[in-house]
């Protein structure tokens, strides 16, 4: 029987070797496995790092800090996140948890927050910490968000589904990035169900959705700013060019009537282009659109940043590009005849835009035609207090000429002075803006807007406010919210 025993031995040894082989295979596959959602290894390793704090623009108000916990069987203490401002900045700051990974700045700036970035200083610090057996410390992040203005925006939006974005036109600094309904990031780890049960007056409350950067709204009349920019900048239309408004526009042989959110009578008769923007007359923009063509309008939309994810410090899946959408996908027609130029010109067609994109449009107009890269991060500070990186303003797009920007500013100032946007007036400050009320086809479910900047002659703040599922118009509901936000920001930074 001994030969059989010897052979059986080798068979069983071969089986045991195969066990070591497959374990080695998993080791070899580890980088691929580490990237899979639900793999606790990487997340937990990062939990042992004393993560950097996240501050408001004042460098004092804390958006995210750590709670050191030592629980059963952990070995090292863990640093769990606490968000003292609860829902205030849940969307831009995001969360960092064990159970559900990370979002917002917590995800996009994770390398800096965990101190695993490759700056020479940080690498040296980490090496020393490791040698001394100390806990790895992350870098702090000071954001550009103005906590007070953010609170004003969140309160003003409260109880509705919508978002507001405020930018500094000449730097691209994001001062407000507000989205409602919001959620308390402290609940993500253990009480996620409570977040899922959030109710809101729109079909899908989706409190986790950052409506400011990823919410798609029909731009409606606010898109007329882009159409006007195309018409003026191409030299095809002047602010003084006159049009006749019959109260409707003929498209493919059918009458498309003006919408009720325009101010003044239903039929204006002969008006200038500037007056058409001031009173948001659809028929005139419809004519302009047909005159300059859908391709030119879309070209200018792209010059403002449409069809791209704005380069802001948020994870890519929390940013949505703006543009025409077809079957839920971004769609840039190769043949301009596929698009209805008239409806495109006044922001209907199949256009969907984010509040962030529309804020970038008005900020570009306010900044002499140059769109700056939006940024949420002011500076990154090492544990020893040394600033290791400070964000400097960068130009993103050159949308229109300074002259076109000045003409648009004048036209938009008239909108707030005596047009559809009077509710955005701020005493002693000239405000430039544009309202929007986009029909979704169902009554009481309009997407409503206000976009604008102030002061018109020296813009300090550009703002976009969008709300969905509203029965009212942009001029009555969105403009006052924009006004509050601009006031709050101008008061603090006169």
């Amino acid at each position, binding site marked *: *029987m001994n030969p059989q025993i*010897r052979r059986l031995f080798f068979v*069983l*040894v071969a089986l045991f070797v195969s066990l*070591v082989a497959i374990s*080695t295979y*998993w080791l070899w*596959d580890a980088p691929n496995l580490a990237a899979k959602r639900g793999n*606790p290894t990487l997340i937990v390793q990062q939990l042992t790092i004393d993560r950097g704090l996240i501050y408001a623009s004042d460098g004092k108000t804390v958006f995210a800090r750590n709670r050191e916990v*030592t629980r059963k069987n952990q070995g090292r203490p863990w640093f769990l996140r606490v968000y003292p401002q609860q829902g205030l900045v849940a969307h831009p700051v995001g969360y960092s948890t064990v159970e559900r990974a990370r979002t917002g700045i917590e995800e996009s700036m994770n390398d800096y927050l965990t101190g695993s970035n490759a700056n020479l200083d940080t690498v040296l610090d980490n090496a020393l910490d490791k040698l001394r057996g100390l806990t790895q410390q992350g870098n702090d992040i000071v954001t550009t968000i103005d906590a007070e203005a953010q609170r004003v925006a969140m309160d003003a939006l409260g109880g509705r589904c919508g978002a507001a974005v405020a930018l500094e036109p000449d730097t691209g600094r994001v001062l407000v990035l507000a989205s409602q309904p919001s959620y308390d990031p402290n609940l993500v780890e253990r009480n996620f169900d409570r977040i899922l049960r959030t109710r809101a007056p729109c079909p899908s409350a989706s409190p986790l959705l950052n409506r400011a950067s990823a919410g798609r709204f029909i731009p409606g009349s606010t898109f007329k700013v882009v159409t006007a920019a195309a018409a003026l900048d191409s030299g095809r239309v002047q602010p003084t060019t006159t049009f006749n408004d019959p109260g409707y526009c003929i498209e493919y042989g059918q009458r498309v009537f003006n919408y009720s959110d325009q101010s003044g009578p239903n039929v204006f008769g002969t008006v200038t282009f500037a007056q058409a923007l001031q009173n948001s007359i659809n028929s005139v923009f419809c004519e302009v659109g047909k005159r300059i063509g859908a391709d030119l309008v879309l070209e200018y939309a792209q010059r403002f940043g449409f069809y791209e994810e704005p380069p802001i410090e948020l994870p890519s899946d929390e940013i949505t590009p703006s543009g025409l959408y077809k079957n839920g996908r971004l769609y840039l027609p190769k043949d301009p005849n596929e698009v209805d130029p008239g409806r495109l010109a006044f922001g209907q067609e199949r256009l969907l835009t984010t509040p962030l994109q529309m804020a970038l449009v008005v900020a570009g107009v306010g900044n002499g035609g140059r769109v700056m890269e939006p940024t949420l991060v002011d500076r990154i500070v090492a544990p020893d207090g040394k600033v290791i990186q400070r964000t400097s303003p960068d130009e993103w797009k050159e949308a229109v000429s300074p002259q076109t920007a000045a003409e648009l500013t004048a036209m938009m100032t008239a909108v707030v002075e005596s047009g559809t946007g009077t509710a955005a007036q701020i005493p002693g400050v000239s405000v430039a803006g544009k309202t929007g009320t986009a029909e979704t086809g169902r009554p009481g479910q309009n997407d409503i807007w206000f976009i604008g900047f102030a002061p018109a002659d020296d813009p300090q703040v550009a703002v976009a406010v969008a709300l969905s599922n509203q029965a009212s118009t942009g001029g009555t509901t969105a403009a006052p919210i924009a006004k509050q936000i601009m006031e709050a920001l101008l008061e603090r930074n006169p």
Partner: protein
Amino acid sequence: MTYRNRELLHLFLVGLLTATGFAAVYIAQQDVVSTASLSYAAFFIALFVVAHLVLRLALPRADPYLLPLCGLLTAVGLTMIYRIDPDKALRQGLWVVIGLAAFAALVLFLRDHRTLDGVKYILGLSAIVLLVLPALPGLGRTINGASLWVDVGPIVFQPGEFAKILLVIFLAGYLRDNREMLSMGAGRYGFPSPKYFGPLLIVWGGAMLVLFQTNDLGSGLLYFSIFLAMIWVATARWPYVAVGAVLFTAGAYALYHVVPHVQDRVSIWLDPWQAPFGEGYQLVQSIYAIAGGGLFGQGLGRGVLITPEGNPYIPFLETDFIFAGIAQELGLAGVAGVVLLYVVFLYRGFRIAMMAADGFSKLLAVGLTAALAIQAFIIIGGVTRLIPLTGITLPFVSYGGSSIVANFVLIALLLIVSNHVNRAAS
């Protein structure tokens, strides 16, 4: 050096390793475990020294490596369990005491294993009774889809662990008696006459019974593999193995179609990432733990095994999945080390069989050794996704009373055979 002095020396080394392991866990988790950890290690070694003294007294010529081997495996398991849940480690320690008591009792009172040959039919019958126990209403208990447990008042135990040993004793006796008859037939590579397949069919039927009754591929596969290994060693007739393998596959295939629990297991094995948070969760987490361990592991007590809520990431971590925990904290080096311990065990066990003069001793040693090794392979293979996952324990390492006690009994029998063999040789 005499056998027993060599054994004592190796036990001393095991003691050093155990103390180091417990100290490592203590240093990594001072907030959880206490300074008592070192006295645990001391107590653990004291137990094995007692077992050693019993061997010195009763079986002076028994193999000197088996006791240190199972001591080291037990220590690795106990350290991991201690790291996962100190309370469970205490209970496991209690089971080690009971296991070693059974070990000592067997060594002291069963001086000659050949007396078992006389009662082999009673033992074979007892094995079947034990296997059927979990199926009895009011007694059986189903955990995680498999009916392997018996619930009698305060204790829940797995009779299959003991049936395994009784089955090996019966097969050793039966095959020794009938190996001439079974080996007959046309030529060495010829096919035995169909009438000789009778016993094979009976055992196959029994394995199928176990399969369908427990709904667990693991135990069925284990018993049948032991049988095939033993019949092949006894007869050197490969057709038995081939036909047996085909029959078992057919039975498993039938089970696959009848029992949804088995279908789940197989489809998860083929693609665990089809439901990484559902059915595939255990296996996926196990793979993450193995991959995350790297070459040398995260270190004892420092691996990612427990969630912030204090539960293991992998359900059944201290029982079925303890190997994944070892991989996470001790790395590929630790994995290879544990596997190597089973290989050395295999070598020592088979060495006893090869040196044995009589067929019964040979087959008994082969059967007992193969049973333990195959069981280790099936569960490690399941945890590493080499084969479909089945719920059996990793011998000496997993948390579980039945498993610990049964495996100490198994080692005691091997040592008795070894003592007999070595005494005859000298």
